[in-house]
């Protein structure tokens, strides 16, 4: 069973790395948004560093959406999903493995790159570390919530728009607590740990509910 799940994760990581894969897609999109904001706002360093965490989080949410519609659709189209149905593991665990691979190729690189991209929006050291930490804790929730939408739109051509409309409202709580935790680290009335704990709780809830809901949506497409 573990072997089957590891095989799934390894395959998805390998596919993301191949030509036409989604490997660097969201990271590059993330960089584009973050790099453009200083040009749009002008050289006001105080303003930039104040809204920096919010920009990084907003970019992370949008970057997660890029390529999300292909998460299950690619497997549905070429029949790989039939293969996974025949595997001796429950579909829930298949979803878990696929979302884990998705996070490893989108959420984790974003969190790791956040300190570097923080330089572009004039974050200081504490804010950089805090934003990276909140992204590390919060991006799994984005992947899991997104997986539900991806599973629901798996058999719809050009389902990307419906997917965004479906999952963006559900991602708002994660966005709110992610940004408030990141801002709490560099001053404010709320202690850093409170919103971070809520963020971690949101990730855990999304992991359970998202996995079950996505598997249910995939199991009976009609």
């Amino acid at each position, binding site marked *: 069973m573990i*072997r*089957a799940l*590891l*095989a*799934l994760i*390894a*395959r998805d990581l*390998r*596919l993301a790395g*191949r*030509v*036409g*894969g989604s490997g660097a897609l969201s990271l590059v999109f993330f960089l584009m948004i973050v790099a453009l904001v200083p040009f749009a706002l002008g050289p006001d360093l105080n303003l930039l560093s104040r809204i920096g965490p919010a920009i990084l989080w907003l970019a992370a949410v949008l970057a997660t959406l890029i390529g999300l519609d292909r998460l299950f659709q690619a497997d549905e*189209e*070429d*029949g*790989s*999903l*039939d*293969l*996974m*149905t*025949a*595997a*001796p593991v429950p579909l829930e665990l298949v979803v878990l493995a696929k979302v884990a691979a998705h996070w490893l190729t989108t959420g984790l690189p974003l969190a790791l790159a956040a300190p570097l991209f923080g330089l572009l929006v004039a974050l200081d050291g504490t804010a950089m570390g805090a934003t990276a930490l909140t992204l590390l804790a919060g991006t799994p929730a984005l992947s899991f919530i997104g997986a539900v939408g991806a599973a629901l739109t798996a058999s719809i051509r050009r389902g990307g728009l419906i997917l965004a409309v479906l999952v963006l409202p559900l991602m708002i709580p994660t966005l709110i607590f992610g940004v408030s935790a990141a801002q709490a680290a560099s001053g404010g009335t709320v202690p850093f740990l409170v919103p971070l704990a809520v963020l971690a709780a949101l990730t855990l809830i999304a992991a359970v509910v998202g996995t079950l809901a996505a598997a249910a949506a995939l199991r*009976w*497409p*009609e």
Partner: protein
Amino acid sequence: MRLSVDNLACRRSGRRIFANLSFALGPGDALAVTGRNGAGKSSLLAILSGRLRPDSGRITVGDVGEASLTECLHVVGHRDGLKGSLTAGENLLFAQRLLGAPRLDPRAALERLGLGHAHDLPVAYLSAGQRRRVALARLLVCARPLWLLDEPTAALDTASQAVLAELMEGHRAGGGLVIAATHQSLGLAGAAELRIETAAAAPVADVLEEWA
């Protein structure tokens, strides 16, 4: 393994596809599912493979211990389940790890189907017939008692059709089951034929007869 299907009915998007479909298969049996285009051959295979919910009816399996039906079967259909950017070997290795019960290693399975040279080629570079043969090689990398084949000879040349017939013979000799939806004779000796009539055309009758 034994498989018996009782009064199966299928409805898709509210439209009745077929009803009152019954058959039973024991070790070594084969079933050729025939019928006109759109009669529901692929829908029957989709129901058996667990991708479609039957409208009514019952499917029972026996002699397989704790395993469920989906864990006992291989599906080779129109959608081949191969990733174009992975090599044929990688695709088969993934299937072997995912499905378990390993039998031949991917290279040996590909050589059995005359595709040994394609082991390290991305599947996207292969022709339709070659892709189909890679998908058929999946039957050999994992041991599973029931083979569900949807038009298995589509895009295959005559030599490969002969190899496929041989593989099915060998599988049945080892007690395996084959259910194939097809328009042409597959060389399945002594296979039963299940003809699916379209529900609209006539009262649905299932005909089980010797099919040579």
